[in-house]
Each structure stands twice: as structure tokens, then as C-alpha cells.
């Protein structure tokens, strides 16, 4: 799966939880979930659970703490997918 595909999937996952439409429309690898998209920390848990379902992977506490922006999320998802 390419990064473009991953970003597209991730965009679909975060959509229900975002509060900043403009930042969402202009989402890039640099986009931060909390500071840019204004996702609250409780909903960040839902994003992670949806990522687990979508990609059939398990996100541990350590990865969860790092998953604060699109770039980190893509790296974590790619690493987990490659080690399957």
C-alpha cells in the first residue's frame, strides 16, 4: 500500500472526529491530529481503534502515544503491515 493510499484511508477514518474542515481538506503528512484537525484525545482513541479494524493490526500503548500526526500514523501503520 502506498503512502497516498494510506493517507486516503486515514482521511476517511478521521473524518467523523475532526473539528477543523479547512485543515482536513488540506490534509498532508505534516497535519497534526490534535493541533490542526482539533480531534479531542478521547476521539483519538476511536481513530486508533478504527485504524486497527481497517488494517487488521494492533496498536500498542507505545505506538498510540506517538500517533499524533499523519506522518507518524503512516509510519506506524506501514511498519505493522510489513511485519504481518
Amino acid at each position, binding site marked *: 500500500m502506498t503512502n497516498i493510499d494510506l493517507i486516503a484511508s486515514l482521511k476517511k477514518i478521521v473524518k467523523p472526529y475532526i473539528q477543523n474542515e479547512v485543515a482536513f481538506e488540506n490534509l498532508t503528512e505534516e497535519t497534526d491530529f490534535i493541533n490542526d484537525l482539533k480531534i*479531542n*484525545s*478521547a*476521539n483519538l*482513541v476511536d481513530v*486508533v*481503534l478504527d485504524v486497527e479494524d481497517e488494517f487488521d493490526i494492533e496498536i500498542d*500503548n507505545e505506538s*498510540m502515544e506517538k500517533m499524533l500526526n499523519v506522518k507518524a500514523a503512516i509510519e506506524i501503520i506501514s511498519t505493522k503491515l510489513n511485519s504481518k
Partner: protein
Amino acid sequence: MAENILVRMTIKEIITHLPYQEPFLFVDELHEVSEKGVKGSYTFKEDAYFYKGHFKHNPITPGVILTETMAKIGVVCLGIYLLKEHIEASGFPKIALTSNTVDFYLPVYPNERVTVVSEKEYFRFNKLKCKVQLYNEKEELMCRGTIAGVIMF
């Protein structure tokens, strides 16, 4: 199966860790608790402060109070149980309600005893999300919904 004595927790202990008191307690007793869910009850006393205003000369338990009761028994009590290995002796958990969606079916009047039944959807990264139902003494469904909160010691 050998059970670790340190992680065993009684229903009474759960209640001692609740960081609330009257007039905002909304938990009288718990009947069952497990990793999967919890069941508990509360009686709305007729002299509760909110009946003076909701409604004028027509006391009915406010929906927010029913939601609060469902959250206290269904999410907070269950959360304390699920975190039993992390509890300090006399500590209270830090709690934040993060979302709720509740549908209401029947009015709850003063002096009614209600039973809350909660089923865990997930408990991950300190967020506990539950499906919660509230019944009256005739076992009629008064309201139900999904409530989530963050809880930690």
C-alpha cells in the same frame, strides 16, 4: 484457578473509590460486576434538589440526571473495577465524560428505584465505552444509550 488476592476487588471497595457524594452520588449499590459489565441501582429520593425545579409542581427526574446515573454506575464503577490493579489504597480516579448518546422512553418519578445495566464495548488507552440501559422496578426500559469516558488512577 488461583486468584491474585491483590487484584480481587469487592463491590463495597468499588464504591469507596467513587469520587462523589450526595447530592451528586447516584449509586446506592452494585449487584454484579465483571470484566464485561456491571449492574447497580439507585433510588431517587423525593427531596432531591432538582425536583424543586423540574418541573414546577410536577417532579420528574431530569434526563441529564438519568444520564449521570447511567454514567456513574455503568461507566465509572465499571472503570474502577477494570483498573483494580492500578488503584492506590484510598485513591480516587480522575474521570472525564467524553461522549454520550441517550434515548429516553419513560419518565422516572420521585422515589423510584432504578437499575442500570452496562455492557463494556471497549476499554483501551484509558477510554471506557459502554452500552448502558436503565430499568425501573417493573423492569421496564426507561432509557438507554452509549456513554464513554476517560478514567485513570
